[in-house]
């Protein structure tokens, strides 16, 4: 996107540019904040590294001792992974909130993440390979299959007439309980090593990040973002009601299918590599909506950036709350997220039918 300001712009163009300028400034500010948090994330750890040293390692290839290796191979991919996962969840939440027209929908609150978690656990503990793909992919594909199943289920449920928005959320919560219980059964029968990996999933942690995992997350994120962003105007129309969107020429069923597929994929990938991360997919779009409204040309990128920002912030918090201990990041996002969740319920549920 480019918004050129010509010397002889029309009054109409000026009006529009003024409207858009604020939003672009917001995106830029958040991006800079995010870059700062990322540097901070690399700096903080079991041993802290000076910011000057980080910049010199990253941009000039200098530095000596262990630090360059720690920065390049451990902390940088982890910091980037926090961003990537945050952005994935932000976009997933933005998409699902749009198609359900429901501000408390998110992959986590609807049980999509829990289902992905269960799928992954099945691959890990029962060595289930449901779709006979290669072993390395099995866990991811299982997770995706279950998240898609739940997303489609939620969608079908929401399509019935006279279903209130609250009912959809309660249905999601029921699914959440169901898949958590199923995952617990697997935990119960797991041996000690397997249990260790499972715990990692239920808490959500960035510590197992590798460059390869990051690239997969990033590639999926980029593709999904591109697919959804192409339909930005159609999605904007879908924030209104269905008849309205149809009267504007939007094939609502097709857009919904696309969003469900993409959201499930994003949730599944996030769960596979860092486990269940709650509330980011809920809060990020909420904040973005307050800031720029639902014009998806801005709403969607801002949801991604906000999600990335929250995750990076939570990652910083997870390392400084107890000195020398890195708390699982999923616990931090839950602690940050629950007050938000409650506030949204109080402010939005009253107006929802």
């Amino acid at each position, binding site marked *: 996107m480019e918004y050129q300001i010509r010397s002889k712009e029309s009054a109409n163009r000026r*009006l529009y540019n003024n409207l858009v300028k604020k939003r672009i400034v917001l995106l830029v500010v958040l991006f800079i904040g995010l870059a700062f948090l990322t540097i901070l994330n690399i700096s903080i750890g079991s041993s802290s590294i000076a910011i000057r040293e980080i910049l010199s390692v990253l941009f000039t290839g200098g530095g000596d001792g262990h630090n360059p290796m720690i920065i390049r191979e451990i902390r940088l991919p982890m910091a980037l992974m926090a961003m990537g996962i945050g952005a994935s969840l932000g976009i997933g939440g933005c998409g699902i909130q749009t198609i359900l027209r429901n501000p408390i929908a998110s992959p986590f609150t609807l049980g999509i993440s829990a289902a992905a978690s269960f799928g992954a656990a099945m691959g890990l503990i029962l060595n289930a390979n449901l779709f006979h793909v290669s072993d390395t992919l099995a866990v991811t594909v299982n997770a995706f299959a279950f998240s898609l199943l739940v997303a489609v289920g939620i969608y079908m449920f929401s399509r019935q007439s006279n279903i209130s928005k609250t009912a959809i959320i309660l249905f999601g919560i029921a699914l959440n309980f169901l898949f958590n219980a199923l995952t617990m059964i697997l935990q119960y029968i797991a041996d000690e090593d397997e249990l260790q990996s499972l715990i990692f999933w239920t808490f959500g942690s960035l510590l197992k990040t590798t460059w390869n995992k990051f690239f997969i997350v990033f590639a999926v994120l980029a593709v999904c973002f591109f697919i959804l962003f192409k339909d930005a105007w159609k999605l*904007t129309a879908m924030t209104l009601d269905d008849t309205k969107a149809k*009267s504007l020429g*939007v094939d609502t069923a097709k857009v919904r299918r696309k969003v469900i597929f993409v959201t499930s994929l994003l949730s599944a990938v996030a769960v596979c590599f860092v486990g269940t991360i709650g509330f980011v997919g809920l809060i990020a779009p909420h904040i973005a909506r307050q800031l720029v409204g639902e014009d998806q040309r801005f709403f969607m990128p801002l949801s991604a950036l906000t999600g990335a920002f929250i995750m990076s912030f939570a990652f910083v918090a997870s390392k400084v709350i107890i000195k020398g201990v890195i708390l699982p990041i999923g616990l931090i996002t839950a602690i940050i997220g629950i007050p938000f969740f409650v506030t949204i319920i109080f402010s939005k549920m009253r107006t929802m039918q």
Partner: protein
Amino acid sequence: MITVNNLHFSYKKSKGAHKVFDGLNIAFARGFNVILGPNGAGKSTLLKAIFGLLHYDGNIVYGQESITAMDTEDRIKLMSYLPQMDVEISTLTVLEMVILGRLPELGHKISDEDLDIVMDTLESLNIAALAARNFSELSGGQKKLVFIAQTLVRKPKLILLDEPVNSLDLQKQLELCQLLQKIVDKQGVDIIVVLHDINLAARYAGHIVVMDEKGSFYSAGRPDEVITPRMLKEVYGVIANVTCDEKGTPMVSPVCSVRRV
């Protein structure tokens, strides 16, 4: 212009179906058409069927082309439609809301053409000053005008409006009808409007179609041909006086309902 041939349609319900049209035939004229009829006559349903939101049996034809057989893309290019019930709350600004009306060809970067059409339309509805406001902050009438603008910016050949004057004050009702008439005269656009206000219809419509409460065609023609005490009694169940002003426009003053209460 639009002809509706042998239209059959029912709303599916849990117990059986609710029949709306059973072999409806209607011909609309070029220019300013108004559909009149009591509540439940199927006026809104007819507009939905024409726009292609319903699965019906029968054939709807525009000129020589069958709208029924058209794909969505062509249909969207041909017409725009203003639903009766509309969105109340949205986080969009007025400008964005109206730009959405340009959707089929809308790019991520808004072209000068898009912007100019949108702002000109807002200007013609006297709401250009609201462009940067949040939609949710507007009054009911202003919201209605925003959606009317959204319907107009697509520059369709045929515009379907379902009770567009609802929630507009008297002055804005007249202004809207004058604007619609101007669009019909200057741009050669055909419009079909559902109205409840018979006097408003009498003043502005070129062609009126009356439907009765069974969802059947009752009569059609110029306002002075259609708006008669007999029609008002048989279709609306109302005793009313109909007088004509100096231009020959009929004026209805209702007296009482035929039904005993």
